[in-house]
């Protein structure tokens, strides 16, 4: 977008943006640099923005103190399944709510949306009871089933519904004339066109699952089964004190893939949300 800002205003604007950037960039910078500092340097005053000494052994210790690779895999495969499952459920539900006329569809959609208003802390105890009854405690099933059929999926259904509502009806009619039934219209016409919305759903679902904290600490008890957010709290010394540099090395390894995914897909993420009318 072209704007007609005067050079002076442009400099002022960019200066302001740089100042506003600090609270967002500084924590990440602090995490990155502290992860390679000896623990005594982390609390040096005045603080060092650039490490005086580099100690990369912290990264090796992450894997020595915890089955970190296994925990990494746990988080990755759970997030992948949750993302895929949510995309399937939300795209089909969103399509049905948007394009198929059935009695009380709007009322049902409202009821589904109401699920978003219930905080997960409220349902965690009954969920624990339920999964305990099913013999799923200390398994990854609760971390997969709750998001795929719970609040994240409801939000994803909302995003997908908003996208499908805006899809021109003539496309579906043309497909009907071309010989397609309802499922093929969804699969061959509507879904490929929903890529931006699906991309947005994929990103925020992945992030939500990757960062899930409350559910893992309730449902998982063995370190082998832990996911990353839960594992990050376990880097402590014999007295329970945090091993900051090792913890921040683990945090760096946890955050980098997410940052990379977001940087690559941010355009699609914003476009996807724009289609839903959620963009500010």
């Amino acid at each position, binding site marked *: 977008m072209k704007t007609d800002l005067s050079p002076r205003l442009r400099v002022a604007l960019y200066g302001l943006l740089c100042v506003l950037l600090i609270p967002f960039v500084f924590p990440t910078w602090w995490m990155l640099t502290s992860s390679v500092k000896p623990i005594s340097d982390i609390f040096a005053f005045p603080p060092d923005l650039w490490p005086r000494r580099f100690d990369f052994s912290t990264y090796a210790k992450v894997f020595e103190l915890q089955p970190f690779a296994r925990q990494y895999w746990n988080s990755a495969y759970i997030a992948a399944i949750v993302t895929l499952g949510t995309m399937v459920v939300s795209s089909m539900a969103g399509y049905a709510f948007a394009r198929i006329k059935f009695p009380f569809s709007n009322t049902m959609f409202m009821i589904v949306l109401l699920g978003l208003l219930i905080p997960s802390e409220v349902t965690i105890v009954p969920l624990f009871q339920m999964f305990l009854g099913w013999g799923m405690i200390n398994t990854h099933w609760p971390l997969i089933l709750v998001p795929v059929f719970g609040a994240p999926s409801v939000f994803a259904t909302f995003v997908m519904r908003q996208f499908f509502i805006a899809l*021109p009806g*003539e*496309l579906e*009619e*043309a*497909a*009907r*004339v*071309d*010989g*397609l039934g309802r499922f*093929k219209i969804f699969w061959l*016409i509507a879904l*490929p*066109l929903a890529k931006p919305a699906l991309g947005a759903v994929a990103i925020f679902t992945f992030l939500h699952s990757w960062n899930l904290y409350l559910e893992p600490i309730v449902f998982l008890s063995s370190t082998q089964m832990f996911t990353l957010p839960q594992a990050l709290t376990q880097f402590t010394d014999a007295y329970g004190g945090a091993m900051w540099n090792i913890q921040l090395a683990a945090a760096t390894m946890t955050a980098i893939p997410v940052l990379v995914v977001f940087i690559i897909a941010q355009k699609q993420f914003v476009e996807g949300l724009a289609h839903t009318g959620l963009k500010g």
Partner: protein
Amino acid sequence: MAPVSLRSIKKNYGNVATIHGVDIDIADGEFVVLVGPSGCGKSTLLRMIAGLETITEGELSIGDRVVNELEPKDRDIAMVFQNYALYPHMTVATNMAFSLEHRGASKAEIAERVNWAADILGLKPLLDRYPRQLSGGQLQRVAMGRAIVRNPQVFLFDEPLSNLDAKLRVVMRGEIKGLHQRLGVTTVYVTHDQIEAMTMADKIVVMNAGRVEQIGAPLDLYDRPANLFVAGFIGSPAMNFIGGRITPEGFAAAGITLPLPAGNLPASNAVYGIRPEHFALTDAGIPATVLLVEPMGSETQVSMQIGEHQVIGIFRERLRARPGETIHVLPDLDLVHLFDADTGQRLN
């Protein structure tokens, strides 16, 4: 190719009736245009033929099959939509091949049919492009290509030119007409543009408020409109209407008496209709005060006042009259239309 027959077709949305029992016979290979103002039910009727709307009552046949309960895919029709409805994520070639692929045609047959259609419509250089890379006219041609590739029994067009600019509309009008002449497929075409209807149709169906007002060849409708609605709708500029009364001395209107065509017409309240181009400039004519002169090059359009009535005349002559001046005009009595003032039906 197949004839299409509509028998007492009705459409209700809940308690609201939108189509009130329509009967139309479309012959094999005929080009029929459904025309009427917005909301008259022409698109609904077309969509009922396509199978995209259910039929509340009546019988719809394509060929010798009653198709009321058949899905669109089973009716052997192809439709061109107002907004083209090309699949944005597919190339031109894939768009055109799509319906054949889903009907189990072989790859060789698909390639042959797509090439044939692309050849006819000049689409060969565009086959690998996506719809977003095409202009309005190209999109329209691809939409037609997608329709003809399947060799259906009936083509349905739903206001296909309404998104194009005026110049391109004229070009595409000719292309659609040419395509019909070449393929000879029964065609039902919906438009609100009466010029499109006049220039393209073998037969025009004029609709108003869910009813058929008149069915006929374009020039029949133009020359002998059955009622005031058709008379006012067909022709541009529209026919002039002057309210008054038929008397033995002529047509008595406010401030003027107009000559009547020969024939025994009973004295009654009526509407006198005369098309703008059916006025002649003659010294023996009726005095008319010039209000506005619009030279068009090939003709001159004049707004004028006759008695207390404002009318429009179109003359081949280059009229040099100025507003306020008086000219003398005479209606061509063979081309005067008289309508009943109460029912609107044609009298002569």
